[in-house]
């Protein structure tokens, strides 16, 4: 049991549903080494004034386990985790930027989220005859989020890519601190607009864990319907967009129609196309009516009818496959080390899905398949998404078949003046979203940390593009579709 061995005889703090322990520097460093050995995975690393927290996942345990270690750093520094385990590096750079805590011994301390004033940023070099750099962004040629990419290329071949993010840093965690719960969940739902349901769900579940309440069964089912609709919309949109980046606009047009149908259904049923602010703490804000049920059933029938033709089109168009097969390979070993979630992980052998590993209602009662492939290329990521579209359709049908009756929200307990803490991990369309929050004695958010799956996926994109031609970057990038907003916060 790697987790219990790490935290033996330390001081527990009340957190639900997973434990948190105050540890000393030795245990902290030991945890960093255990991460490096691959026995446990990194869930997140974050800070609040004067202390740092490390959330670890033991995937091998059954069921999987999570534990959080906290280290007080009164002198303003803590032993670097990134020195042992690369996935922690960007998180440590963030902690340094936003909280001024020094990761002692860290391999990279360049600013990450906070660009500071004036100081120029030193990009990592690649030197050799015939190499040159291509800077791109933060304003890109298309309608996408801002970030800066620095490519070092040899002819057409990318030798190194370095990402610089942080342009859409909105100070979200700062706004969350001190916010009442109803405002906080609206803010959390805007961490990344494409995952608004998943973020609101993660926040709500963490808050509910802290308050010791549970959403009623009907609410849990409706939440899952929303989450699967969100997954469906994003996968459909992205499958089309990936094909479009391979100059196959026909797929974009058809997938665009399917995606629009999903959004219109969401609008009709829940009153918002992206389903923002539909999940509330303790339940959902909108019940599902008989008409709503019929709309959703009509949608799944429609998608089932048209989607297979598009899949066939993708599968049988050699010019398209030529661009996606073997392109942008994320190596399974790297994916495992970074514990990359979602379709990126599952396209590279990492069979991890929160709905399976740490199931929350109603997924604990639902059987579904978790598609996994091993090639790790653009094609594999497209296929995982295709199969997940089918799984989501099946899940929606099954949830609706057994939709429980009853209330859709439970009332919040009276505030009793004591602080509380909660954690949650939920499966968004792009992977696992982690939320940790502590409430003060008045029921306001004292601190909240949200970790987007992109933190562990962006670095893999840097690796996956190596050795590919620059012209294939859009394809690789779109097949990853990492979030800028969710990451920059």
């Amino acid at each position, binding site marked *: 049991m790697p987790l219990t061995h790490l935290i033996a005889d330390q001081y527990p703090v009340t957190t639900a549903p997973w434990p948190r322990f105050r540890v000393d520097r030795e245990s902290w460093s030991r945890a960093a080494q255990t991460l490096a050995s691959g026995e446990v995975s990194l869930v997140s690393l974050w800070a609040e004034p004067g202390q740092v927290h490390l959330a670890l996942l033991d995937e091998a345990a059954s069921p999987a386990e999570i534990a959080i270690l906290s280290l007080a750093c009164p002198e303003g520094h803590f032993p670097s985790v990134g020195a042992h385990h690369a996935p922690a590096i960007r998180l440590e750079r963030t902690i340094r930027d936003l909280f001024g805590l020094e990761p002692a011994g860290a391999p990279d301390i360049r600013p990450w989220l906070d*660009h500071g004033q004036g100081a120029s940023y030193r990009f990592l070099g690649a030197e050799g005859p015939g190499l040159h750099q291509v800077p791109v962004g*933060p*304003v890109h*040629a*298309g*309608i*996408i*989020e*801002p970030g800066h990419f620095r490519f070092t290329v040899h002819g057409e071949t990318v030798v190194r890519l370095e990402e610089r993010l*942080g*342009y*859409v*840093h*909105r*100070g*979200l965690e*700062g*706004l969350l601190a001190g916010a009442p719960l109803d*405002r906080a969940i*609206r*803010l959390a739902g*805007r*961490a*990344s*607009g*494409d995952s*608004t349901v998943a973020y609101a769900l993660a926040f709500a579940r963490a808050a509910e864990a802290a308050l010791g309440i549970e959403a009623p069964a009907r609410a849990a089912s409706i939440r899952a319907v929303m989450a699967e609709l969100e997954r469906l919309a994003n996968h459909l*949109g992205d499958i089309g967009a990936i094909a479009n980046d391979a100059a196959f606009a*026909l797929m974009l*047009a*058809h997938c*665009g*129609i399917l*995606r*629009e149908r999903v*959004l219109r259904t969401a*609008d009709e049923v829940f009153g918002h*196309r*992206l389903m*923002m602010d539909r999940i509330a703490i303790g339940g959902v804000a909108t019940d599902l009516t008989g008409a709503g049920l019929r709309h959703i059933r009509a949608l799944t029938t429609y998608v089932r009818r048209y989607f297979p*033709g*598009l899949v066939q*089109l993708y599968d*049988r*168009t050699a010019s398209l496959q030529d661009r996606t097969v073997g392109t942008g390979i994320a190596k399974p070993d790297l994916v495992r080390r970074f514990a990359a979630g979602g379709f990126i992980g599952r396209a590279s052998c990492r069979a991890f899905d929160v709905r399976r590993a740490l199931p929350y209602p109603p997924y604990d009662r639902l059987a579904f398949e978790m598609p996994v492939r091993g090639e790790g290329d653009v094609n594999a990521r497209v296929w995982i998404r295709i199969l997940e579209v089918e799984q989501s359709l099946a899940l929606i049908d099954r949830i609706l078949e057994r939709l429980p009756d009853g209330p859709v929200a439970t009332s919040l307990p009276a505030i009793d003046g004591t602080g509380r803490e909660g954690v949650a991990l939920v499966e968004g369309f792009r992977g696992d979203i982690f939320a940790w929050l502590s409430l003060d004695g008045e029921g306001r958010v004292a601190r909240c940390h949200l970790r987007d799956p992109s933190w562990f996926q962006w670095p893999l994109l840097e690796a996956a593009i190596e050795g590919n031609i620059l012209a294939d970057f859009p394809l690789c990038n779109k097949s990853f579709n990492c*979030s*800028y*907003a969710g990451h920059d916060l």
Partner: protein
Amino acid sequence: MRKELFAGLVLPPLTEASPGADDALLAALGPEFERATRRRLGRSLAIREVDAGSCNGCELEIHALGNAFYDLERFGIRFVASPRHADLLLVTGPVTRHMREALERTWTAVPAPKWVVAAGNCACDGGLFQESPACLGGVDAILKADLRIKGCPPRPVELLRGLLTLLEAAQR
């Protein structure tokens, strides 16, 4: 593939009726706009979109304008890759400190006469991020918006209505 292409010939079009211009938005456009646009815009509008700190929700809906339902290009409105080719900047997000310079530079690169449209509550006035020290509080903090399209995010049809209002004003 042929099947999909042939189906396209026989199926009825999906496109919605044009939503028409919005009187309230029309009233919000200054006389300055009308004078300048008449010369510049015929029935075409080239847009450069800039995400200045959006949660990406607004981008998703702006993207949707291109799908078969809204088919923005039938109105002569198109998104361009370079600010040099643009008539207007469509800006989203509460303008983060880190996007300020990029937004200013993009604006400088657009040839005059030029306009700014704020899309979404964040771009209109900072939205939920108004109080954040990391944000400047809407497009107006940097550039003066000629038109504001509210919503979080605005629905595609609302965005379309806003853009058509601009064109309408230009033609009167």
